[in-house]
């Protein structure tokens, strides 16, 4: 009875709102006098909510509350102060930020040029489809495989090492240690930054209307004029947003560096890894959490900028 009753009400609501030309919001209005009935729809999100609660929200709260520990385990700011004043950790943040910034800039520039080159081609063609599929794979496949790929290229017995040595004589490339330096990491990270840039930036480039270019040309503008005065400013928010996303992506990455670097921990994610797997966690459980909070703060700040820029972009595209 209840059900058919509410069904009638529902139909009435639809009719009423369609007469008024308004959208139906849902069944919510019907049961407002009954708290239980009105909260029933919320049960539908329970399984999802539980998963997110246990595997995202709870761990994050554990990290934040765990960071508020003194070195002896008591409540206090000790761990955070230690992380903020110890040169080892400060240097970790410095190198992490440098690595993320350099690889984001290199990836954003190369990726933007690449997006332009792909956008000029046939949008339904097989070539683009292959490029997009490969980008999807390359952007996700950091880590161990990427490390192997670069060791197989530039490592001691790598393909290009052997080629270069046979071309230019001995000892040009025998030392593969540059791969483990900051610049080496930038080169490796850029490998997964370029495809990510393509994925996020290609839609922006495709939104450039050919009419704008024609209008610029008919007013006597050169290609350079078009890019500096029209295309560039339109793409700027998308480009900056993508740059921030790439920064966050590289800053958060752990796997590639962990597989590549076996000694020392020059970047924060590796320091966290050492802190939880090594002795440090037993003597000082707050350090890994304080480092993690530092990472969250930086990434949240960067992603906040990204979402701000995104909303600017979507306004542009709609208008």
């Amino acid at each position: 009875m209840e059900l058919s009753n509410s069904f009638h009400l529902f139909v009435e609501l639809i009719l009423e709102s369609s007469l008024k030309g308004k959208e139906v919001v849902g069944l919510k209005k019907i049961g407002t006098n009954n708290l239980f009935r009105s909260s029933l729809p919320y049960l539908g999100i329970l399984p999802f909510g539980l998963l997110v609660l246990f595997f995202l929200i709870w761990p994050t709260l554990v990290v934040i509350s765990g960071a508020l520990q003194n070195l002896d385990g008591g409540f206090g700011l000790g761990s955070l102060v230690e992380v903020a004043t110890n040169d080892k950790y400060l240097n970790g943040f410095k190198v992490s930020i440098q690595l993320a910034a350099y690889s984001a800039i290199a990836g954003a520039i190369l990726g933007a040029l690449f997006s332009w080159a792909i956008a000029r081609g046939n949008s339904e063609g097989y070539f683009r489809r292959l490029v997009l599929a490969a980008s999807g794979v390359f952007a996700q496949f950091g880590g161990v495989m990427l490390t192997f790929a670069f060791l197989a290229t530039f490592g001691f017995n790598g393909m290009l090492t052997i080629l270069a040595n046979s071309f230019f004589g001995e000892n040009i490339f025998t030392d593969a240690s540059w791969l483990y330096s900051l610049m080496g990491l930038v080169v490796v990270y850029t490998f997964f930054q370029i495809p990510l840039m393509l994925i996020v930036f290609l839609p922006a480039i495709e939104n450039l209307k050919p009419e704008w270019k024609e209008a610029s040309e008919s007013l006597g503008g050169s290609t350079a004029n078009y890019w500096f005065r029209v295309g560039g400013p339109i793409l700027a928010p998308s480009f900056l947003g993508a740059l921030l996303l790439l920064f966050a992506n590289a800053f958060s990455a752990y796997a590639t560096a962990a597989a590549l670097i076996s000694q020392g921990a020059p970047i924060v994610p590796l320091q966290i890894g050492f802190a939880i797997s090594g002795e440090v966690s037993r003597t000082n459980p707050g350090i890994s959490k304080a480092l993690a909070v530092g990472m969250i703060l930086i990434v949240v700040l960067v992603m906040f900028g990204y979402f701000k820029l995104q909303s600017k972009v979507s306004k542009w595209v709609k208008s």
Partner: protein
Amino acid sequence: MGQIMKNITRVSIWRWTIIAFVGAYLLIPVFAMLEFSTRGAPGERSTEAWLAIPTFPKLLSSISTSLQLAFIVIFLVVFVLVPTMIWVHLRLPNLRRYMELVCLLPLTIPAIVIVVGIAPTYRALYQVFGSSPLTLSFVYFVLILPYSYRSISASLLSIDSHTLSEASRSLGASTIRMISGVIVPNIKVGIMSGAVISIALVLGEFTISNLLNFETMQVVINLLGKRDAATSVAVSLAALVFAFILLAILPTANKTRSSKLKTKRKVEAATK
């Protein structure tokens, strides 16, 4: 006329220079993997490293673990995320913003940070599921949320889900039937591309499984790399090609536009 032709050739020279340069950056390391894993005696090629793959039982079992994880994650996407998203979209529109926020949250919380805080969750999980590596699927589900949410949400917004749900309701369909029989077939493309990205991510995941000491494919490949570099490079390349083929053959987001058109046509045909 000559000026335009000159412009076109200049553009295409630029275009192909960029494609060649970036293509070389991305493809040389992949080619080097092939070259490295097929090295034999000096000057010869050999398939030894590839044939050795089945001789490492630990490697095989880890590949099977990772594939099972990918399967469970897709199961969770299809039977938890998709129904929840449709439900929120249709019935709880005031929660839409929060749902989006939650789904994009993993972008701001790096995997390494989740590992730091997940110990208590895993202690509780251990009581229920034991120490199976398949328990990783729950964390992976959270990790892939931003990507799967975006592709499914794009599909969901491109169809007129309210009309569809009202139509099916007025024909007497239950909620479950409305979701599974009417909405889901219309957002199949988004679900599929979300699923494919999930496979790529799960097969490539290293951070969490390594630090929680679970033997997934990447963890074992990393260990094997120290003993038999050629074979671990061969497995890596195989996984790369596998994910690439999946992404290349399954419909991508590009197609959503045409499917939107199709839905529009279907609706128009139905209303005539």
